[in-house]
């Protein structure tokens, strides 16, 4: 089987400068094609920069925006995942990742989980998506696309894998923080992400492709370290931290089959059990307005 060539575009977008970022994406797609890439992945909000605040509305595009169609034309012969501020018909703004194939926008994933804590303030500026679906692709397999924080929720990679994805793609603008010598590569964020990525790849027996941006917006440094993880959970490739680069990684899609035959975790998943228990848990939530367990004195905790 011909290897699949993945291009990780670990770029540093310019904050709010849509035209420059579009041009940069276009050049990168051209370079990726010359290098024989099949799948090109750009980081979260690569077309706009991350820390937009009130600029979000000024750089928003509809999914049918001709500028995206232009990028789709640049991606002809390949699959490309690009990310931008999407304005819906009803003028809600989403952080979206689009799959571009055969000259058109084939699929759009709207970021489901908007971190609004710590240094994040996404819910203030954006609406949360509410569809979680894998998508067919010209690569002959299904892809699962997620944006950054989506991968901090277990159900996302699980659902995408159950929906048939064999490559899970996460596009990120992950701010580097929690510097401490005890962390792998000195950065708490990087250590956490690496743990997640390897775990998801192994548990879903899928490839995980992580493209994280570099550069700075305001006070925030994005750490890069984009990766491709094999279905066995082993890293196939890890990009340098903080440096821009277009990295090519060849993978054998046959590894998915091999792993899933040898380790049939997906075969053994029990989604109907999960669903049944989720229904029960959700039904129980209606009478959980007051958290009795924590209010009750010791020894009198309500059994639930």
């Amino acid at each position, binding site marked *: 089987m011909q290897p699949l060539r993945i291009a990780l575009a670990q770029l540093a977008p310019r904050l709010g400068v849509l035209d420059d970022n579009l041009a940069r994406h276009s050049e990168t797609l051209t370079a990726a094609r010359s290098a024989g890439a099949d799948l090109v992945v750009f980081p979260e909000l690569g077309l706009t920069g991350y820390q937009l605040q009130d600029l979000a509305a000024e750089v928003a595009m509809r999914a049918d925006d001709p500028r995206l169609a232009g990028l789709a034309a640049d991606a002809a012969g390949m699959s490309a995942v690009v990310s931008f501020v999407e304005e819906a018909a009803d003028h809600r703004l989403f952080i979206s990742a689009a799959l571009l194939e055969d000259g058109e926008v084939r699929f759009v994933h709207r970021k489901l989980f908007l971190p609004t804590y710590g240094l994040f303030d996404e819910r203030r500026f954006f609406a949360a998506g509410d569809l979680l679906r894998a998508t067919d692709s010209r690569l002959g397999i299904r892809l699962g696309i997620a944006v950054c924080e989506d991968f901090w929720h277990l159900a996302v990679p699980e659902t995408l894998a159950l929906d048939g994805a064999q490559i899970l793609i996460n596009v990120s603008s992950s701010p580097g923080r929690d510097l401490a*010598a005890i962390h792998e590569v000195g950065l708490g964020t990087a250590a956490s992400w690496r743990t997640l990525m390897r775990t998801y790849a192994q548990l879903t027996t899928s490839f995980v492709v992580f493209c994280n941006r570099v550069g700075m917006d305001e006070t925030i440094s994005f750490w890069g370290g984009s990766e491709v993880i094999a279905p066995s959970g082993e890293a196939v490739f890890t990009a340098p931290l903080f440096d821009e680069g277009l990295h090519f990684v060849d993978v054998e899609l046959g590894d998915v089959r091999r792993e899933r035959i040898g380790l049939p975790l997906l075969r053994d998943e029990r989604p109907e059990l999960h669903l049944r228990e989720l229904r029960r848990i959700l039904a129980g939530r209606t009478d959980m307005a007051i958290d009795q367990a924590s209010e009750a004195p010791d020894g009198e905790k309500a059994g639930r």
Partner: protein
Amino acid sequence: MSSDEKGEPGRSESVSGGGPGAGGGVGGAGPEAGPEAGPEAGAGPMFELPPELAIDADVARRVMVGFIRNQLRQAGFGRALLGLSGGIDSALVAFLVAQAIGPESMLCVLMPYRTSSPESVNHARLVVDRLGCASDLVDISPIVDGYFGRDGDGGAGGAAARDAAPLRRGNFMARARMCVLYDRSVLWGGLVAGTGNKTESLIGYSTLFGDSACAFNPIGDLYKSQVRQVAAEIGVPELIIRKAPSADLWPGQTDEDEAGFSYPELDRLLFWMIDKRRTDEELAAMGFPGPAIARVKRLVAVSEFKRQVPPVAKLGPRTTGVDYLYPRRRPGSAR
């Protein structure tokens, strides 16, 4: 006025002892923390580094250097300047700026007052020589004396200024330096790099609109102990790292005497209190003395205003900082 300014009279308690890992030298702090005595100076470790504060100095350096480049580029500047005191904070920033944009694009301004320690200027010169950057010496004595008076001659401040306490004079000096620095920034065509660290920012040990004034600050999220760690890594001369930190606002002043804390103790307490969100009870259980916890909490709370942009009364539909929220650097914001 004293509570919003540098220096606080009447401090007595000190943080002593500490919890797990307290008081350790740097030996076990991991591969990145190796401030062993170099050829330049005496025996023993250069400084004490609490293990939990040890960072990957190279990652920190890369982030700060990138930050400096980015701040300048986005503002449309290629040059920077800073006030070089002879202390470790401004020395580290000078090394970082030199790495970011090259020493030829950096100006260090030395601004001694007549009572400043001659050692301070000598140490600043050491940094300038080491980096090979431009420097400028401005004696701020006539500015400060022009206001407070000198040797019985009255100054512009009149009788109210004549017998000013060292604290007022110190704050005035810090602000005079800010005036000089911002004036020279026009001449040099560069932005003013800030040199305040996280420890002094959190406890409010800085002069509002004085030493805290800057266009950007690369080291403002590093505790003093971490400043020392990166400074050692990046090649700041060892005698600058080893000497007792001082605002040098009056002869013999040292930060640690004035505050009643040692930096490693204070840094550890702030780290667990602020970064790791430990409650007072948890901090006490870790071995921090109750009075020290209470006092540091108070210092942090009363200096909140120093760390924030002055508030604007909300009147119109969109108010800066409230519901008009734009990045400082955005399309069109470069000069």
